[in-house]
C-alpha cells in the first residue's frame, strides 16, 4: 500500500508501476486550431493505490482517462507518448487489443450514471452484457454473477432489482450499479471519472466508502478524477494537479494539502469551502479564466492568472515553460514553477496558509 516514488520526468526509465503514463499528449485538430487537451502528462499508479487527478473543467482530466481506455481510437485525436499497463503498451495497441482489455483488465465509472446507462435495457442485462464480453459463460451463470455484484455494491433485493430499468433506480443506486458493471470482470485498474459529482453529499460518502472497500478487497489500482478536493483528501494516496493539460504539481495527499508549492494549488485550496476552520468573509476564487487549449499561454501555462510573477526574475514566467522538478524535500513531490523553492515555501507558510 505504500506509494511508489513518482517518476515523472521525461527520459527516465519506466518504473515497474502497474500503470505508467509517460509524456502523454492528446491533441484534437479542429477548425479553430489544434486543441492540446493533454500535453506531456506523466504519472504512475500501483496496485492498491488510489491516485487522484484534480483540476478545473477543461484541464484534461477526462481526456486522459479516456486515452488510457483507448476510447479516442477511431476519432480524430492525435495521441503520442506511452501508456504502460502491466507491461503492455496501450497508445500503439490496436483497437481489437484495446477492446479485449477494456472492461476486463481496466474499467471505468462515469460521472452521470443516468445518462451513462442505456435507458432501454434492464440494469441486470447491462451488467450481464459486460461480463459475457470477456467471459465465455452461460446466460444463467452471468446473471448469477451480476446479482452477486449488485448485492456486493449494496443494492437491496438484487434478484428483483436485476430486472429494473435504470430510470427505476435512484441516483445513488444507479452509481452503485455502474460500479457493479465496472467491477464485474475484476478489473485491475479502475478509472472513476467524477463518480460522485452527480450525487448528493450523503450518497457521495457512501459511494466513496464503497469504492475504498472494494479496492481493498480486489487490490486494484484506482484513478479518481475529480474537481472536489474534499473527495481527494478523503480517498486518495497520491495526487496529480492538472492545469491546462499539464501536471503542475504532484505528490502524496499530505504534501499537496499541507505543503503545496504551486500557486495554482494554493488557489485551489483557497477556493475550497471548509467547515473545520473559522468562517471567512468569502471564498477566494482564482482570478481569471482557464487557459485556451488552442493558444496555450507562452511560458508557464498558469502565468496569466498567477499573482506571484514578481517573485521570478527577468519575466521568466512568460518566456520559459517551467519543468516539473522534484521539490527536493520529498522524492514523491514535484512542482512546475519558476519561483525558487525556498521562496515558495516561505510564501506558503507566511502568506497563504494563515489565510486559509
Amino acid at each position, binding site marked *: 500500500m505504500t506509494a511508489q516514488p513518482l517518476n515523472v520526468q521525461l527520459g527516465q526509465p519506466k518504473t515497474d508501476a502497474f500503470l505508467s503514463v509517460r509524456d502523454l499528449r492528446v491533441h484534437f485538430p479542429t477548425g479553430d486550431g489544434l486543441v492540446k487537451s493533454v500535453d506531456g502528462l506523466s504519472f504512475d499508479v500501483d496496485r492498491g493505490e488510489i491516485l487522484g487527478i484534480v483540476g478545473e473543467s477543461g484541464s484534461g482530466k477526462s481526456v486522459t482517462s479516456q486515452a488510457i481506455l483507448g476510447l479516442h481510437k477511431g476519432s480524430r485525436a492525435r495521441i503520442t507518448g506511452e501508456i504502460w499497463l502491466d507491461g503492455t503498451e496501450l497508445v500503439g495497441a490496436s483497437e481489437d487489443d484495446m*477492446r479485449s482489455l477494456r472492461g476486463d483488465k481496466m474499467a471505468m465509472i*462515469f460521472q452521470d450514471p443516468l*445518462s*451513462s446507462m*442505456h435507458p*432501454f435495457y434492464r440494469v441486470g442485462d447491462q451488467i450481464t452484457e*459486460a461480463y459475457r*464480453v*470477456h467471459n465465455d459463460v452461460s446466460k444463467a451463470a452471468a446473471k448469477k454473477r451480476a446479482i452477486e455484484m449488485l448485492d456486493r455494491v449494496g443494492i437491496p433485493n438484487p434478484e428483483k432489482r436485476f430486472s429494473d430499468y435504470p*430510470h427505476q433506480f435512484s441516483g445513488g443506486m444507479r452509481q452503485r450499479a455502474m460500479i457493479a458493471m465496472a467491477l464485474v470482470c475484476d478489473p485491475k485498474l479502475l478509472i472513476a471519472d467524477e463518480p460522485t459529482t452527480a450525487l448528493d453529499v450523503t450518497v457521495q460518502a457512501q459511494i466513496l466508502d464503497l469504492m475504498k472497500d472494494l479496492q481493498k478487497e480486489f487490490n486494484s489500482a484506482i484513478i479518481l478524477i475529480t474537481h472536489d478536493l474534499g473527495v481527494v483528501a478523503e480517498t486518495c494516496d497520491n495526487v496529480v494537479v492538472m492545469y491546462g493539460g499539464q501536471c503542475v504539481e504532484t505528490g502524496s495527499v499530505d504534501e499537496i494539502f499541507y505543503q503545496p508549492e504551486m500557486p495554482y494549488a494554493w488557489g485551489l485550496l483557497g477556493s475550497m469551502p471548509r467547515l473545520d476552520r473559522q468562517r471567512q468573509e468569502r471564498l477566494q476564487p482564482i482570478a481569471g479564466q482557464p487557459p485556451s487549449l488552442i493558444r496555450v499561454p507562452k511560458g508557464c501555462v498558469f502565468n496569466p492568472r498567477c499573482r506571484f510573477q514578481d517573485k521570478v526574475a527577468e519575466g521568466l514566467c512568460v518566456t520559459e515553460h517551467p519543468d516539473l522538478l522534484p521539490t527536493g524535500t520529498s522524492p514523491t513531490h514535484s512542482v512546475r514553477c519558476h519561483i525558487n523553492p525556498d521562496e515558495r515555501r516561505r510564501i506558503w507558510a507566511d502568506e497563504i496558509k494563515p489565510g486559509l
Partner: protein
Amino acid sequence: MIRYIIRRILAGILVLLAASFLTFFIFQLGPKFAHVSPALYYVGKIPPDQATLKLIEHRYGFDLPVWKQYLNWLHGIAFGRTLTDGTNVVHCSAPCLGYSFRQNLPVTHLIMQALPVEISLAVGAAFLWLVGGVLVGSISALKRGSLFDRGAMTMALAAVSLPIFFTGPILLLIFKYKLKWLPNTNFATLTSDPAQWFRSLILPWCALAFIYAALYARLTRANMLETMSEDYIRTARAKGLARRRVVIRHGLRAAITPIVTIFGLDIGQLIGNAVITETVFNLHGLGLISVQAINSQDLPVNLGVTIVATFAVVAANLLVDIAYGVVDPRVSYS
C-alpha cells in the same frame, strides 16, 4: 395497459363519429348551395322530371333531416340497409357505407375491391423505405463526412424534391417501355398470382418508397449522430463491446425509437392518400377511386373512402402509442 387501450379505442370511435358526421354534413352543403336536389347527382347527365326526382329523393332519404340521414347511414354500417322507392329495391348489406348510384354498387364493395391494392402498395413501399432509409441513414451517420454520406444526403435531397408524377413516368418509361422488363403491369392479388402481384407493384413501390426513404435516411442519420454521442455509447465501448454490437444494439436501438412513431403515422396517412402513385401507375386503390368519385360527384364513395382513411389514421395512432410502450420502457400507461 388494457384499460389504456380500451380508453384509446373509445376515444378513437369518438373521432371516427365526429369525422364521419362532419364529412356527411359537408357533403350536404354542395347541393344546398347549388339549390339543386342531391338526387340530381345520382341520375346521370340528362335530368329526369320532377316526379322522378322526388321518388329518387325519397328512395335515398334525401327528404329527411341531415341528422336523420346520418343516423340511417350509421344504422346501415351496423345492420345494412334496404333502399326502396316502392318499385326498385336495392339491398346494401352490413357494413353498408352507402350506395354508389353512379356505379350502382355498394360503397363497401368498391372499397373492399380497392383495399387489397391499397394495402399491398402501402405495406410493400413502407417495408422498402423503412429498411432502405434506416440502413442508408445509419451508414451515413457512422461514416459522417465520407463520400457515401455526402452522396447519400445529396440523393436524399433530390429524392424529396422530385415528385412521383416525375419519377413514376420515368420508371415506367425505362422498365416497361424501353427495357420491356415489365410489359404487363396489371394488378393481380397476392393470392391469385403472386408473381404478377409483385410485377405490378415493384415500380409503384420504388417510386413511393424513394421519397419516404429519403426522409427516413435524413431522420435516421440525425438521430444516429445524436445517439452515438450519448454517454451510454461511451459506456458500451468502455465495456469492451465489439463495434458492431455498440452500433446496432446500443446505438441503432435508441436511434430508431422515434422513427417507430413517424413510421406508424406515415403508413396510416398513406391509406387513401397515395393518389398520385395510384394514378401514375393506374392502380385501383382507394386514392384513385376517391379521385374518380370526386370527378363524378359520387358522394357516397367519397364519404366511404374518407371514413376508411380516418380509420387508418386513428388505428395507426393507437398502434404507435402501444408500440412506443414496448420499445421504450420509460413510457408507462397510467
